[in-house]
């Protein structure tokens, strides 16, 4: 028993340290959001206090914030729908040995996944100004779809690869078309994996700042911009900004916890295979 104890203890120590380090900033922000303004920056820090909720109410009613929240929801949803509409068939075909140019496309996907996303922003900005997509939810969702697509294809491909090829063959013998094989067999079987992919995509789009900053101005502003907006010209409303940050973190944290098992499985694909 004894020799086992130390390594086990060590593992827990590392895990707990990592958790504390990554949760501390969130905890700190939550505390700022819940404290009176006078307590927020007191030194030494005030650890025990009566929580106040006024910052949350203020953040939510601040002009533009709830609208930005809705914009972000729409952008994540539309971006995901577009990414999956292209990513699912692409992933299926890239798994078929018969598909021509398959290797080259896979390498290209990996390269484009590694390119900095901000790279397309300047030409797209010019283009969007010209065709009227600047500062629109659709315009932003289109760009997000482009930068989530390689990742989507890569993950969905790994989930599809787990579906036995004999299923597709059996369906083909029964007269199913490739589209029917994808939507009636592969998608339902890989559904948990697809859901995990969608959540990872959503987190990425939800938290994106640079592209949103470049391609939106006001109407299509997203939550990350809205949070930054609490930094006024003269002063920063720390309480409302912290409360807004917490509001922004919550939905994605909720999804992440919900789909945790599938996300871990999804992320460890590729490495295990």
């Amino acid at each position, binding site marked *: 028993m004894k020799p086992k104890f130390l390594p086990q203890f060590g593992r827990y120590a590392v895990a707990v340290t990592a958790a504390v380090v990554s949760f501390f900033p969130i905890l700190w922000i939550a505390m700022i959001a819940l404290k009176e303004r006078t307590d927020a920056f007191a030194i030494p820090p005030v650890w025990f206090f009566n929580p106040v909720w006024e910052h949350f109410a203020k953040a939510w009613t601040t002009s533009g914030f709830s609208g930005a929240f809705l914009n972000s929801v729409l952008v994540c949803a539309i971006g995901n729908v577009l990414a999956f509409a292209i990513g699912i068939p692409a992933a299926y075909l890239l798994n078929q040995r018969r598909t021509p140019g398959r290797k080259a496309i896979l390498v290209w996907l990996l390269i484009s996944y590694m390119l900095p996303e901000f790279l397309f922003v300047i030409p797209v900005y010019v283009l969007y100004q010209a065709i009227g997509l600047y500062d629109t939810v659709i315009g932003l969702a289109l760009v997000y779809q482009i930068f989530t697509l390689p990742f989507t294809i890569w993950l969905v491909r790994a989930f599809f690869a787990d579906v*036995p090829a*004999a*299923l597709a*063959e*059996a*369906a*083909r*013998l*029964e*007269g*199913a078309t490739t589209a*029917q094989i994808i939507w*009636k*067999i592969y998608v*339902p*079987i890989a559904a948990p994996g697809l859901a995990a992919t969608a959540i990872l995509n959503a987190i990425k789009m939800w938290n994106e700042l640079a592209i949103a900053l470049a391609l939106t101005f006001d109407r299509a502003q997203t939550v990350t911009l809205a949070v930054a907006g609490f930094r006024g010209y003269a002063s920063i409303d720390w309480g409302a900004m912290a409360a807004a940050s917490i509001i922004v973190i919550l939905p994605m944290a909720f999804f992440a916890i919900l789909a945790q098992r599938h996300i871990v499985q999804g992320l460890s694909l590729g490495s295990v295979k």
Partner: protein
Amino acid sequence: MATVSLRDIDISYGATTVVKSLNMEIAEGEFTVLVGPSGCGKSTILRLIAGLEARSAGEVFIDGANVSDADPAARNVAMVFQNYALYPNMTVAENIAFGMKIRKTDPAKIDSAVREVARMVGLTDHLAKRPGKLSGGQRQRVALARAIVRHPKVFLFDEPLSNLDAEFRASIRLELRQLHKSLGSTMIYVTHDQVEAMTMGDRIAVLAPIAVAGSHNLMQFDTPDTIYRKPANLFVARFIGSPKMNTFEVDTTAGGLKVAGREVPFAAALPPRVVVGIRPEHIEVGEAAGPSLSAKVRVTENLGHEYLVFTDTALGPITLRVSDRHDCPRDGQDLTLGLPLARLHVFDAATGERIEPDSAR
């Protein structure tokens, strides 16, 4: 019901040839078994007939129509896969109905067809379950039902029993035979189990890997009886039968074979060296109407209804089966083995081809 013809089929993957010069004519309603060691191309041939595998040369005919380039769906063949390939996201009923739904069959018709087939294979109580909740044998039945419901021209089976335990296999084997009788369909069945091959096939196609056989895979295509009694070559002789046929290489003389120092008359044009074969069940303890040799028992195995006796002789190790009506020979005992002349198989040592005595021609 349909005939199936394979004409001059070649299949290669890159530089590796898997199937070469394959010719087979399968009659309407015939139960054909493809048997051979692992890697000899059995699954590949089955998939070729289904349209799932591309060929390098040759043509495939179903019912006289050239389907070589036809889509799998257009061939109207049903395949039962080794791992069943059931759709895990659908219930048993949905699995059976999938093809009909794709073809937009009237829902009332689908329902009655599913029920009828489920009754045939004994799945009526399981229609609402997912495949994951079924036993191996039940999954097997779902796969079967999915094939039957389509009324295909040809049924293709790829080692459908290999995932089942031995007892269950024997009973499903019987059911499949009965199914074949009642449907009267053409069925092609792949196995590497020679008991399955012998018991199920109207005809058996014995296949060898190209690496072993050289110019073509099909070693013999005939009834189980002929395959057993008159194996066309050494490969078939050694592959069918358990324990394996005893074989030993001997010289020939002008009028026959030289076996254990004795001349055995054999009226045929013989090459200088031949391989003589005799099945373990045909060797007699004591003298027989043919050559005899002395043997020393190395070890015996008691199978209850018979003994397997492994001996060493001047011709090498020889295995024989002794019925339990005799006493089991003791280890180390000296025996005289009689090799009945009528039971000897003779093969050309150079080519491995069977040589028939002139009288039998």
